[in-house]
Structures are given as C-alpha cells and as structure tokens.
C-alpha cells in the first residue's frame, strides 16, 4: 500500500489505491523513492494529483517534491499560464498554472492552488499548481490505455478502483 508522500510536510490526503500485485522483479526497481526509472518495462510509476476534482498523474522520471504555495515572482512577457518563478533551494523554477495550460480553468479571481508539485527531468523542472496531491501509484505498463493519436498533453489513461487517471506528458507541457 502506498501512502501519499509529501516532502515538505503536506497533508496525507491518501486515497488508498487498489493493491497492485507486483512481480518479484519489479519490487527491486520500485525500491527507490522519489527517483529511479519511471517505466521499468513492466511497471509504470506515477504521482497523481487533482484538478477540479479529477485525478491526473505524471510519470515519476526523476525526483519530485510537493510544497505549499509561496509567493511567486512574476516574469514579464511569458505565456499567461506561467505564473512566474519560484526559488527552490537555489534554483529558479517556472510555476505553471496547470488548469490554464490544460484549458480547464475555472474562472475565479486570484486562483491560488493548494499545492505546487515540482516535477520533471534534469533539464526541465517546473512547479505545477494543483488542487491536491493524490498518491504514488504503480501500475502494470499494460494497464495504460494510450491514446491512438497523441492529443494535446494527454498520454493516456489508467484505471484505478473504477476511476480514470489521466496521464499527462510533462515534456509537452513544458514545451513553450
């Protein structure tokens, strides 16, 4: 059973995922927390989060962390969905309003998300504004239903306990 993991003391809003029976081989590679390969051939490791009540996820390809929202410094002449930059341990990271980026923004003044999920690879890390964090989940690669044609930022969906989790493509999201 995987619990939600927040690096900086976020609430443990765990939605217990259905226990997944892992093969012996995958347990070894699932060992590394917050790091290691996302897809180990057989296994898909995801971190899920919520936007407008729906569950989405990223593949965990590198380390990731979750922080409470902080003041973001605006940067001029960047797309609207980039709120600005945030300094995290000496690194300047862009902060993206995911709802705006995905086009599912609910009109409200001064939307400030409950959490910022920092994810991405070595080259392109960013902080994503999310309503809440789900959990780290593992699935068999086979259970991913890929889209027949690449559509926007969606790679595909995985089903857990009857609910669909939309897997988003970080690289596409960060390709401005």
């Amino acid at each position, binding site marked *: 059973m995987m619990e939600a993991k927040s690096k900086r003391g976020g609430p443990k809003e765990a939605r217990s995922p259905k226990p997944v029976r892992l093969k012996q081989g995958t347990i070894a590679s699932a060992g590394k927390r917050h790091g290691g390969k996302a897809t180990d051939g057989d296994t898909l490791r995801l971190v899920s989060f919520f936007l407008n009540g729906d569950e989405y996820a990223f593949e965990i390809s590198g380390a990731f962390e979750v922080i409470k929202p902080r*003041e973001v*410094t*605006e*940067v*001029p*002449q*960047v797309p609207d969905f*980039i709120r600005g*930059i*945030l*300094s995290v*341990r*000496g*690194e*300047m*990271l*862009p902060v993206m309003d995911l709802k705006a980026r995905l086009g599912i923004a609910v009109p409200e003044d001064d939307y400030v998300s409950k959490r910022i999920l920092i994810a991405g690879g070595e*080259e*392109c*890390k*960013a902080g994503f504004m999310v309503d809440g964090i789900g959990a780290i989940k593992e699935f068999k690669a086979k259970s991913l239903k890929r889209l027949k044609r690449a559509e926007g930022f969606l790679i595909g969906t995985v089903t857990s306990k009857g609910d669909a989790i939309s897997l988003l493509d970080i690289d596409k999201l*960060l390709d*401005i």
Partner: protein
Amino acid sequence: MVKKGIKGDRFKEFLVEAEDILNSMGTGLLKLGRGVKAGIIDPAVLNSIFRSAHTMKGMSGLFNCSEITTLSHALEDTLDLLRLDRINLTNDVLDSIMSGHELLVRIVSNKCEDGFTEEVEELKVRLVEYSRTGKVQGKDKIDSELLSVLTEYEAHRLKVNLQDGKYIFILGVSFPVTSFDKGYASLISILQDSAEIIATLPSSKTGREMLFFDILIGTVKKKKFIKGLLKETEGLTFKTLAEPSERPSASRPAEAAPPAFTDESRGETLRRASDTVRVKIDKLDNLMNIVSELGIIKSSIESMSAELKNEGGLSFYGIELSRIGKELERKFTELRDSVLGVRMVPVGQLFNRFDTFVDRLSRESGKEVRIVSNGDDTELDKIIAEQLADPLMHIIRNIVDHAIEAPRAREQSGKRMVGTITLSAFQKGNHVVIEVRDDGAGMDEELIKRKAVEKGLVEKRVVDDLSSQEVLELIFMPGFTTKDVVSATSGRGVGMDVVKDNITKLSGVVDIETAKGKGTKFVLTIPSTLAIIQALIVEENSVRYAIPLNSVVEITELAPGLNGAGTPGEAASTIMLNDRKITCVKLANFFGRSNGSGTNGDATYGIIAGLADQRLCISVDRLLEELDVVIKPLPEMLKVPGIAGATDMGEKGTLLVLDVPGILEHQLRERKQPVKQETVV
C-alpha cells in the same frame, strides 16, 4: 581504440594533468627558444622540458594512449641527448621538438582519440635522425637488460652510484591501484633521507587491482637498514644488485650537481609534488549556493534582531543578539569572500596559452609577431577566464592577420620588424580590465565604412552619420570583414561578432581605441565575478527589481512632468542630462506590463546606466536599498530580453535582476525610429 584506463574519472584527471604538463613544457620551450636566439642554453630549462616529456610518456602509458607514449618517448630521447650535451641544439632540432609539443597538445585536446598516427610517425622519424649523430657509450658491468630499461640519465646516475661505492638495491613493491600515488609517495619519503632513488620501473609482475614497481636505489646504508626502514611495507621484495667492493675510488669524474637532479627525479615518475588541489567547478558552485543560503538566514536573524530592538528597547537579549549578529556578519563576509576566492585564478594562466598560438600564427603568416603580458597576477573567476579564451584568441588572430604589417613594411615606416601584442590585466573596482594592444597599422575608419556598406550591413546614409566609436564598432557585426579573399585564418566575417557576443554574455563591454599607423587597443571590461554582485533594489509600478550596480553611472531625480510624458505603449522618451540626450525607459512599458499607479505626479528617479559611452536612463518610483545579491539564471524556457536572472532575497522575496546592457541595446535598435518627446530635467 583507446582504452580509457582504470576508471573514466581517472582518465579525465589524466587529461587535466597532461594539459598542465604540456603547459609548462610549452613555457619551457619558449624560454629555450629565446635562449637559443641569444646563444645561451639553460640546462635547468632543458632538464625540466625533458622531465615533462618523460612524465607524459609514463602517464600516457598507464592509460594506453599509445600515440602520446610514442611521441613523448621520441621527444624524451632527443631531449636526453640534448641535456647530456651529446647533440647540438640547432634550430632544426628545436623546431622538431616544438612541433612535437604542439602535436601532443592536439592529441590531448582530442582526448587521445586515434587519428594522429601518421603525424606521430613522421615526427618520430625526424627525431630519431638526431640521435644517430650521437656517440654510443661503453657498457658497464651492470646487467645489460637492466641498463636497456633505464633511461640514459638513470643509467648515468646508476654508474655514478657504483663508482661512488654505494649499494645498489632493487625494491619490488606493490600498491593498490586506487591509492598507489599515496603509497608510492610515502615510500619515497621514508627512503629519501637514506638513499638516492635512481629509477622507478614498472614491474613485469601483474596482479588484481595492484600495480607493481621495481625501485632502483643507491645507498651507503646496508641491506638490513633499508629493510628496517621499510618493515611496514607489505609485499616488499629485495634484491641486491651491487655491493661496494674494493674498487679503486679513483677515476671518478667530477659530477656536476647530481643532487639537484635527484630531488626532482623522485617525484617525476608518478606524481608531481604539488601544493594545490584540483576541485571540480560544480563542487564550488555547490559551496556558493550554501553560502548564499546562509546569507539569507543571516539576514533573517538581522531583521529579527532589529525588530527586538524596536520593540523591547534595551532588553539584555536584544543587545546580545545584536552584538552576536554583528560578529556573524563579519564571519559570514569572510567565509563568502574565501569561497569566492577559491574560484579565482590568475589571469596569467589564460595569457600563457597564447604564447604558442602567436608563435604559430607568426610563422604561418610570414610576419614577425611576439606577445608579452603584464598584470598576470590579476585574478578572476575561473569560469570567466575560460569564457575569455575564445574572444581573446579571435582578437589576437585578427591582429596578426589585419593589424600587424609585413616586416619590410614595418621597417620602412620606422617600426621594429617584430610586431608586439601586449596583453594587460588590472582590477578596476569589481571589474577586471583586459587590454589587448598592438603596434600595428591601426584601424582605418574609411575602409571600415566602405566595407560595411559593400557587405550590405549598413546603408550608406546611416554610415555617414556614425560617430568614430560607432564606426569602429561595425567590425562586430556578423559578416563584416575587410578582406576580399578568404584565407585559412580569416576573412569569413566570423569572429569579431563572436567576441562581442561572448563578452556581452559575461556582462562585459568591449571598447576600441585606435590610431592609424600607430596601433590599436581593445579594452575588455568584465565583472570579476558573476556570482555575487552589488545591486540596487528599486521599485517601479509596484514591482521591485534589482539593478546591478556595476552598470549604474549615477542616480538622478526626475521632474514629475517626465512621468506623464511616457504614454502607455511607448517605451521611452528622452531627457537631457549634462548636455547629453539620454533615452529614458519606463520598465513597465518596456516589459509590456500595464501602467498602473505609476503616474501619480510625484518625482521619480532616473537610474543612469552606462556602457562605454552609451547611456540609458531607467525611471523608477522608489529607491529601496543597496546590497549584495547572488544572481541565479532563469530557467531556459523563460529567457526574456532585459532580464539577466533572479535573486532570492529570502524574506524579501525573489526579485528579477535587470540586464542593463540588454535593455540598452534594445533601445539603441529602437532608436532608428524618431523619438517622440524631449523633456529638460
């Protein structure tokens, strides 16, 4: 294929070490060359070059860089003959050795990839020729197999030791691969007071993860004594090669200063005694990060201390905290300066690289050019020094190509036949100024104007309007060249624009001074360190920015009327200051932000920024404070013109740092459009 040796990292270290050795070899060769011209050959210089070749041979052998080994070996042989005075140092010989050195440099910078075999063989043949002219020395009673393994110098020392009636022992030792340098060094230090290390030879023994050596020593001490010294050494084998017998102590030719060479030969084979440590740049970056975070924490303590003071008046703890805070401030500044200091390197390291470069250019172009430098001790950040290598190379190449006249022409105009390029460096505030001066033909403004128009880079009517300085700056435009024919080294119009780009990236400035017929001077002004800068925190339109102070020339108050002059959508107006027309920029407009409560009628401030003789005014609403900040770059996807980076000021938030040269350049380009309004300050 080259095997990368023991570990990838070790190979990288080898490359760095090799570069170092080749560097000092190069310096030695130049000294030698000058000595030859003057008719004097310094044996110490010759010997040090020899040792460099020897070390290169040994090291490259460990990493299977066979081409380097072959070439170094050939060089070493020739140098050995030279230092034992067996052959003459003719220009031809010197030339071959220098070519050998250059080839080594090239192979190393190509990371020992193959492809140089032909050139190496060619050079080896040349070098071997020289050895044929030497005499062969008679062999001694020593095992000829051993002798063949020793270099002639070592054999020489062996003979001397024998003649002196010393014991000759061979110590077989082994060390683990990962720590052999330490093991070897400590072994040597144990031995050094009692014996002369004649030679250290790789042994034919092999083992797992172990390196085996045979150390040949000559000593007056007996076997028992030496064995006693080394009783801690594991796996030591001992062989006696020779013992003093009743040999006639006569017939010992006077030896010229052997001990001097002995000291040096100890360290030469495997390790150079050095009092420096190599550190990876990213370790230093990490240190810098930690230091700057510490700085933020320190600031928090300071503000809390200030609060306490304000609230509680003269509480005991408040005062204590304040006192401790001051101590913390002092120590922190020391720490920060030390860490910054670690990254600094003397600019001489950079300058030295151009010696061989100019030599080669000089030969290739048929002109006589020499290069001198001063201010070599001036320090700057290692990264900046590296970034300067290319621009300086381009400038120097341009000088040799365009500026320095042919020897005959120089003679006729009363100049020395040898053209001189002078590199100077000195500190100026928190900048380093690097000057490249030549005594060549100077730059011809008319020619530049003509060529610029010809190449379609500017229009004729624009060109006529330009000031002298601006004409000279035309050479930085991509595609500009005064050559009609492309040569091997120049004429393609690429080079000076790269220089400009690189210098601008370093937040630096290039200025040119020239006098026709006399010479030209390039002046590069760069901040000595990028990491921490002094900044002025300002507020404009309710947004705070950090402006690097090194670009600020003065701060002036602007009359209220000016604000109204800047209508939304129009980035700039002009003001008059000290009889100069200066463009004034409102940041909100420049960045396309909505102009909120800016126009409230109050006086505002103009930050006058300057680069060379360009001036720009940035109007702001408030001046907040001046402090040291650490600039971090913005993420790649968010690079915006006019912004150099951001700085985390802890409690005070994260601010954007302005790129003043960038804003200035942008404005200058906009200047083509007629300016709307003028207001007198």
